């Protein structure tokens, strides 16, 4: 593990200092090209729908990856931020009459503040205790959303008004694909900048050994909290966008199972890898759509695929593949 970290470290720093041109530029350009050209292969709106869902999940996973892969923390309750981002915007727009172009960013900001408040005591815990604490908080949010039905509509959920910008309601799959593609690109760009900056180095030091990092002057508590807040903001943004796209939100979005799904996507795709987060989100969103033809066998096959992938790609898909390529 230490060897791999230093190799990728060296690569990143060398690349970052290469003539002032950020090494991520070709990757970002490629992403932009792929996102722009992908719709050419879409036969109907269902394809757009799947692509939109993949992109939204990828946004959450990029943020969660920063927390799990780079900062070395764990969160088994991240779905709560996702769901509260959606519910926050939906409740403000429906019950308090706010316009959606205001309620959406407001909900995201609110989640950032919540993450900051909750993160300070929680991130003092480590390992399984931290896992349990985040799990507990997520379950509490989930139960409250189910029971406070006057506010949230209860277990059957609530309808969410569409996003209206400059008098026009943004509806329809192609429109939303454009919105979500832009946000995804921005998320990748932001995360890349974060990792290539001194902040990123501090994070990786943290992950390697928190105590060693502290002896080198890294204020681990502050950095952990910041990344926690950033990952919550990513999740809330994706959650709010999903709510306004689907026109609907249910408490299931805050469930423990959803939190676990998100963690699986991150680990499956590869921790400490932005592309890993995107790949993990893509594969694990597409897989159920493909496996659904297996009907009763779907759950079994999905479980088997998960086990096999983690056995053969223990670091996740992207890092293991990258290693194989590097060896050659």
């Amino acid at each position, binding site marked *: *593990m230490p060897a791999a970290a230093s190799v990728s470290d060296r690569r990143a720093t060398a690349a970052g200092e290469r003539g002032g041109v950020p090494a991520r530029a070709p990757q970002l350009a490629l992403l932009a090209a792929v996102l722009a050209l992908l719709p050419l292969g879409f036969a109907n709106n269902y394809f757009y729908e799947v692509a939109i869902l993949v992109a939204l999940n990828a946004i959450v996973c990029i943020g969660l990856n920063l927390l*799990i892969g780079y900062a070395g923390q*764990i969160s088994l309750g991240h779905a709560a931020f996702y769901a509260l981002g959606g519910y926050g915007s939906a409740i403000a727009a429906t019950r308090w009459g706010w316009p959606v172009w205001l309620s959406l960013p407001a909900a995201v900001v609110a989640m950032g503040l919540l993450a900051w408040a909750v993160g300070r*005591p929680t991130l*003092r*815990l*480590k390992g*399984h*205790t931290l*896992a*349990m*604490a985040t*799990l*507990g*908080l997520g*379950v*509490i949010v989930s*139960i*409250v959303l189910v*029971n406070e039905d006057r506010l949230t509509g209860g277990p059957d959920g609530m309808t969410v008004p569409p996003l209206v910008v400059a008098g026009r309601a943004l509806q329809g799959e192609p429109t939303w694909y454009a919105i979500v593609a832009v946000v995804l690109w921005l998320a990748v760009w932001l995360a890349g900048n974060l990792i290539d900056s001194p902040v990123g180095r501090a994070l990786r030091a943290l992950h390697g*050994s928190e*105590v*060693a990092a502290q002896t080198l002057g890294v204020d681990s508590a502050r950095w952990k909290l910041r990344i926690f807040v950033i990952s919550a903001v990513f999740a809330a943004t994706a959650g709010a966008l999903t709510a306004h796209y689907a026109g609907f939100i249910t408490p299931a979005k805050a469930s*423990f*199972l959803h939190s*676990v799904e998100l*963690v*699986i996507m991150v*680990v*499956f795709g590869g*921790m400490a890898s932005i592309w890993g987060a995107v790949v993990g989100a893509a594969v694990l969103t597409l897989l159920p759509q493909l496996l659904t033809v297996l009907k*009763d*066998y*779907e*759950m*079994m*096959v*999905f*479980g*088997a*695929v*998960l*086990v096999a992938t*983690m*056995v053969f790609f*223990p*670091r996740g898909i992207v890092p293991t593949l990258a290693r194989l390529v590097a060896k050659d």
Partner: protein
Amino acid sequence: MGANWMQFVAGGLTAGAVYALVALGFSIVYHASRAINFAQGEFVMIGGMGAVSLVALGLPLWAAVPLAVAGAMLVGLLVQRLALEPAQAGGQADVVTLIIITIGVALFLRGLAQLVWDKGIHSLPAFTGSEPMHLGGATVMPQSLWVLGGSAVAVLALGWFFGRTLLGKAMRATAINPLAARLMGISTRGVMRLSFVLAAALGALGGVLTAPITLTSYDVGVMLGLKGFAAAILGGLGSFGGAVAGGLLLGLIEGLGAGFVSSAYKDVIAFVVILAVLFFLPGGLVGARGSERV
């Protein structure tokens, strides 16, 4: 009001005893491999559903129960052998990877259970009849006593095994220092397998003991896995006494919370209490407050 209080406690302890058995399973696996086995709840399901189908085939209860537990133990061995060992062998798998593998295993087992059995809800006949008993103002089903008794016996048996037998001590040695244990001739691989088999046995035992009260179905493992994990952490992951204490305490809080505060929010109350405990005692109630290796 006094009688009510007793009833809340009785109900809470019955549920708590099941959580304790599941938590014990978590602790045993963690003790041996530092991994969380998220398939633990599925062993409970296999025990319960296995016994149900054996009884449906015509076997008497006293034969179906041990067979179901044995079946679960076999599944546990296969899981360790086929899913976890290949990952651990490479030496690259870190704890998170192993956890995701156990989640995959849980999904696989649940999906398989849907096909082998069905999606319906099933019950087992109570071991010694279903006439409620009156104890100190509360009514208790005889099966509840089986659950509590069974858990107590399991804990005592584990204590004897780990404390007094050579095999048990070998397992504890592996948990403390795997390298040293291997140098002393203890097979780490054997210890891992045995831990899984034991964890499966405990889970399945919980499943057959409670199926007459709580009913069972192919997806009963999800919630139990979650609560058992919470109980194990509450008590202190890796500690057997802690697992039992955590399980019983969790059940008690749920019962008293439902009775005195709000039945809708009893799980919230339970988790709030767990969080409060963890903030002050990060190692859990009984957990080691030791130092961390740097």
